[in-house]
């Protein structure tokens, strides 16, 4: 299975990732390889599926969450308790 470089550019744009031409080439090749690996799954014989789960729900009750400090701890940039990021459109 092959992927062309336009598809790679489109997917990169959807993911808001900037790729230079060299990277586009590299990823085009890698995407092809990855899709190839998944194709191998088509050759795997069918197995007995897990029994169907349904209606897995929890009661509408409040659980303790994270503090503001904990929530922001992994963020590279914060301001006044907010996550801070680049402008978006």
């Amino acid at each position, binding site marked *: 299975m092959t992927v062309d470089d336009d598809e790679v550019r489109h997917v990169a744009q959807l993911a808001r990732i900037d790729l230079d031409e060299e990277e586009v080439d590299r990823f085009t090749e890698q995407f092809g390889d990855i899709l190839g690996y998944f194709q191998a799954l088509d050759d795997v014989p069918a197995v007995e599926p897990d029994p169907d789960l349904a209606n897995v729900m929890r*009661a509408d009750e409040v659980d303790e969450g994270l503090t503001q400090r904990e929530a922001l701890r992994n963020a590279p940039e914060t301001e006044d308790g907010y996550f801070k990021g680049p402008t*978006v*459109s």
Partner: protein
Amino acid sequence: MTAQTAEQRDLTAVIGLEVHVQLETETKIFCGCSTQPDDDEEPNTRTCPVCLGLPGALPVLNEGAVEAAVKVGKALGSEIPEETRFHRKNYYYPDLPKNFQITQYDAPICDSGEIEFGVDGDRRTVEIERAHLEEDPGSLSHAGGSIDTAEYTLIDYNRAGTPLMEIVTAPDFRSAAEARAFLAKLTEVLEYLGVFDVTRNGSLRVDANLSIVDAAEVDEGGGIDEETLESANRTEVKNISSHKGAEKALAYEETRQKNAIQRGREVEQETRHWDESRGITVSMRSKEEEKDYRYFREADLPPLRVSGWKEEIEIPELPDARRERFREEYGLDAESASKLTSTKQVADFYERIAEKFDSGLAATWVADNLLGELHYRDMAITDVTDRLGEFTRLVELVDTGEITVKNAEEVVLRRMLDDRLDPETVVESEGLGKTDDDAVAAAVSDAIEENPDAVEDYHAGEDGALNFLVGQVMAETGGSADPGTVNELLRERLEG
């Protein structure tokens, strides 16, 4: 008609709505974080690994959100399918910490349905195509300017994961006014169900599709065939957050598109942003196409099989039915019945008062006096629902004749609302208890003795004389005497 308008084509707007409402639950749709903001809360204080999208966190569906969705489906007359499931809608935007939104795609929890509403004296029925559950994104603020000029973005995930229901209508509306009337009816029904709070900031968000077709394409039943609809370019208007905003945005968009067509220009198929402060819609840079969302099954959430809940879950009497019952059961006219069922809280309040008093007296006190005074003060029934007992005692004081109707309306009720006093305190501090018979009789004697001219005028047949004397007695008793009784006593004494 001028020559120019005679040449103009007769055009009709075709409008469909996607209405997003926040469901009133205690917790978020996939985690146990609270959905209820504290006053002046700090950002990012109601989050957890699930609603922050941290690696490895797993969503678990909130039963309360599913119940609310089934109630909505019941009220809309929807089918609850045997099996419904969740999908991931993939897009990269900072309000979405996981880079996808969990929503429903090919198997929504509510399928089909309809809503009937009134507009300009007509009844209209609009078809509901579907209603599905999804999660609310977080909220962004664009620091240092507007969305276009901001230098950076600040993100608060407190709202992220609040349960939303998206209700999608067929393109059945032909005017902005119809769309507004529909939204009013929809939110009224949702409030009756107790699943929605219209007063909550951001609880309602509307996207609207609008296109223009030749009026001749509309058949007698108001329908338009698929092909005509497909061939008309339409715009999607986003960022509408109120009934009034919907009407204004759609009226603007309708005029904009009609003008373009009348001038021979094509309407571009695009997404537009409603700018409330400027009162216009503006083109948004084109976002992803439908296929770019790469919807796929949310493998972390097993399917739902809740069609049976439709029978198990009770919903309260809905507004139209309640209005009808109020007219029959309490003998109210259409206007009073309509006022008294305007919200579930008003209707409940009225029924509690009507249990104890004549239904007409109760209607006057709730529909006219109480709602009128509340409206004047920019207050709502919810500001006084905890004071039902005090209000009952006020009506009781009038009903038993302990205070005059005039004093009850003009003094006691107003001070109850302005100063948060109970009725007895107002009656006592203002000295409004009806004066006993002896005091009234003494005041009548005084008035006759002190005003011989008026007595003479009365005997000479002058109309105003008696009213003057009644006024004197009322003044002396501080307004607490019953004017009818005073009138009668004066006549007796003057004639006798």
